[in-house]
């Protein structure tokens, strides 16, 4: 059985992730308790809100330490969604300079208007160009549309952490991976068929 801990750190939007995990055959637990995170087979860190608030909330609950033990230490499969992906970075600038979890080298910066792409936040469906054939995108392939809603993006220092890119505002990284640590800037829980496929792929990691 796949027990999926959905990390509750006061940044909302947990119900749609919980429902999507359920639809994809996992058993979701929305939690901020260490014992739930220790027994989970998979961990999802969702999130809507600013980088600074997100990191503060994680630290207040000691979740940064607990997550490090489980994800970096015990190598439990991990998926960060939106802000949850951004917080993997070493540093973010939303709400002021703030240290992130630091599991992926890079910084989270604001999208900058480029050419025709001047409307920020970037809200809506957009293509995700996948690098190679990673298992997370199994059966989905490249150039499918996922749903985005964000103003900031994770700029990676190492090319080998980049799992996918999306061409908006000069292009940004829309998925990352380092081992079993995965992150997506888009919202699979709101991306219907392709989103559910991605979540099922994550559950089979």
């Amino acid at each position: 059985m796949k027990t999926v801990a959905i990390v509750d750190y006061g940044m909302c939007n947990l119900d749609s992730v919980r429902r999507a995990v359920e639809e994809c055959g996992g058993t979701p637990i929305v939690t901020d308790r260490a014992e739930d995170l220790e027994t989970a087979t998979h961990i999802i860190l969702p999130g809507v809100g600013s980088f600074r608030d997100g990191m503060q909330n994680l630290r207040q609950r000691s979740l940064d330490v607990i997550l490090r033990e489980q994800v970096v230490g015990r190598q439990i499969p991990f998926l960060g969604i939106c802000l949850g992906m951004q917080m993997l970075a070493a540093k973010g600038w939303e709400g002021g300079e703030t240290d992130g979890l630091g599991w992926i080298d890079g910084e989270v910066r604001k999208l900058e208007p480029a050419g025709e792409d001047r409307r920020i936040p970037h809200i809506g469906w957009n293509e995700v160009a996948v690098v190679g054939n990673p298992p997370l995108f199994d059966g989905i392939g490249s150039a499918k549309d996922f749903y985005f809603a964000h103003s900031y993006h994770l700029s990676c220092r190492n090319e080998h952490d980049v799992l996918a890119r999306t061409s908006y505002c000069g292009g940004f990284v829309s998925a990352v991976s380092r081992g079993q640590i995965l992150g997506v800037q888009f919202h699979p829980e709101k991306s219907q068929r392709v989103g559910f496929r991605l979540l099922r792929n994550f559950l089979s990691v």
Partner: protein
Amino acid sequence: MPTLLFKEVGLVKGVGFNAWRRVGSVMQAVTVYNMREVDELVYLDVTATTDKRPPDFESVDELADECFMPLTVGGGVRTVDDVRRLLQVGADKIAVNTVAVDNPAVIREMAQRFGSQCVVVSIDAQRRADRTYEVFTHAGTVATDRDPVSLAQEVEALGAGEILLTSIERDGTMVGYDVELTRRVSEAVSIPVIASGGAGTYAHMAEVLRDGRASAVAAASMFHFTEQTPPEAKRYLREQGFRVRL
């Protein structure tokens, strides 16, 4: 994106924010739109503010549980706590309307707390005889003497993430969007503007995207009362050279 308007016990659709007709149940509509893979859904409780009701969090919770697409919820949203609770039960974005005029400062608080991407300001505007436009609040019943362009700029500066712009006199008529209104607002702000009110054909959608510079289009009557569907609309728009998801 289809718009669902809720009043009393079921879905309704009117003309010019009036003459409401029953058009079925919410859950039925959501199930159909899930199957048809619509891009987003807008759910507005149209009489919440005029009835002085807060949002119906329980109904939104039930609706959101079955809605696997981005969901914008509006109607009666006035406080930061309303937004928090709606996001908690599964809404992705919140639409505010009356409070954007009565107490615009709350938009800044909402955007700071939850991010601009989930704060949609819904602006209902009506054309005056002299071809200027006026914003109405309270589901189109209260005139404000505000110009939609300046209101859109004000809420953008406060941190709103999107504008849902509805033409009151085009609403439910299916004669086409108010392209002029949409263009004026779209050119004045750099956040996305969703055109609403008047869609009757796929060509109307292409027109307001092209000439009105809208980022997205919403429609209700044409999906409730005609054979036209969101997937066909998207195929049409793709053929016309617009970037849409199929």
